[in-house]
């Protein structure tokens, strides 16, 4: 539908896109989902994100918001009366933003190395990946969510990678659950939420996607 108030330009396996899907679902926002072919980007994507030409891009009343963390914060601020994702206390907000930044610095890049490399490089990536997840497990502690009693910003930021864990495990030949059982418990708890259930693809589909991607990139 042309002129839909909220549009999301996305790509189904993207964990960054999943964050925005989850945030929109948490707030009960109706939106138009547009699947992008990243090998053949739409004119709309290039117009709405000319700087990076990447997804996800949230378009609200014709105005674009790019970068997933920025889009999730935008959603939290523009629809502030429902299901707040960030806490109201400035110190707790800063903690949440710090950990979201940590996820971005570590999890995606290390995960990519796990499926895209072999030998020493892969082993080093696996080690650091597990260390990073353990750090987050420590941060979670005994709480049901990173947001405390309720699902919040850090949960939204991290849980999409759960749909990639199976692919990491297969290509990396290791078990994430064996190393970080509490984190897997957390991920399963999150997956019971409708917003997460609707937004994460099946992990076998993701594995299939990575297989194809490796072929296309010429990675053994």
């Amino acid at each position, binding site marked *: 539908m042309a002129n839909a108030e909220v549009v999301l330009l996305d790509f189904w396996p993207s964990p960054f896109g999943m964050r925005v899907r989850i945030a929109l679902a948490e707030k009960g926002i109706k939106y138009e989902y547009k699947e992008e072919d990243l090998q053949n980007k739409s004119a709309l994507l290039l117009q709405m994100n000319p700087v990076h030409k990447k997804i996800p891009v949230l378009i609200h009343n014709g105005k674009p918001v*790019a970068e997933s963390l920025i*889009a999730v914060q*935008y959603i939290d601020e523009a629809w502030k009366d429902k299901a707040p994702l960030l806490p109201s206390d400035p110190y707790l907000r800063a903690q949440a933003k710090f950990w979201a930044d940590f996820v971005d610095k570590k999890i995606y890049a290390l995960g990519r190395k796990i499926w895209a490399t072999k030998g020493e490089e892969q082993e080093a990536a696996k080690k650091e990946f597990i260390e990073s997840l353990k750090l987050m497990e420590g941060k979670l502690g005994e709480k049901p969510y990173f947001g405390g009693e309720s699902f919040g910003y850090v949960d939204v930021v991290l849980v999409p990678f759960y749909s990639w864990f199976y692919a990491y495990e297969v290509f990396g030949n290791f078990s994430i659950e064996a190393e970080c059982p509490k984190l897997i418990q957390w991920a399963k708890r999150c997956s019971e939420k409708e917003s997460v259930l609707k937004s994460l693809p099946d992990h076998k589909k993701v594995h299939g996607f990575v297989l194809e991607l490796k072929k296309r990139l010429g990675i053994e």
Partner: protein
Amino acid sequence: MAEEEVKVFRTWSSPFPLRVIWALKLKGVEFDTVYEDLSNKSPLLLQYNPVHKKVPVLLHNGKPICESLVILEYVDERWKQFPLLPQDPHERAKARFWAKFGDDKVLQTMRMDVLLKQGKEQEEAIVSTIENLKYLEEELKGKKFFGGETIGLVDIALGWLAYHFNVVEEIIGVKLIEQQKFPLLVAWMQEFSNIPTIQDSWPPRDKLFDRYASFRKAALGEHTPK
């Protein structure tokens, strides 16, 4: 009224803690400074930033906040005078976008590839930096500062362009921000630097030059080109 204890862990040279210093000064917040030697980090720094072990760290009433852009937003939320972020959610998103762009696309490339590499790798980094600077030039159209009439989060995040950037240009002997190509950026650099709080906080230029030159020399080993 409870006494506020505000401390900033910084180095004398890094542009990241400088952002926090500027924000606190502009907001008229009293604070203490702890200078760190990153080759010999204090136990306190390691205690307050165990994850990254870096500066800046802001300590507010004993509670640490890390990562300069996170600290800036915290400072803006705690001390409302001289607001750094606008109120409108879309404008806030734009400000966050440009602050991140500056760090990911310009700062990273300058301090790593432009300063520390040579030959083709350096050339490509220079081309990439200039391409990305064009976006910033475009963003300044019709504005005195990135924040509009007064400086904001983006000006503070990009502030290093008005000082540290030129030190790198001088060391490598290549000018990237040329007047004809980037008239708005050059004007912004002057306006930004003219702000007394900013002017008073720059690190000593000759020391900075020596520091960056030594980084370049170390990265390139014995084969420093002329």
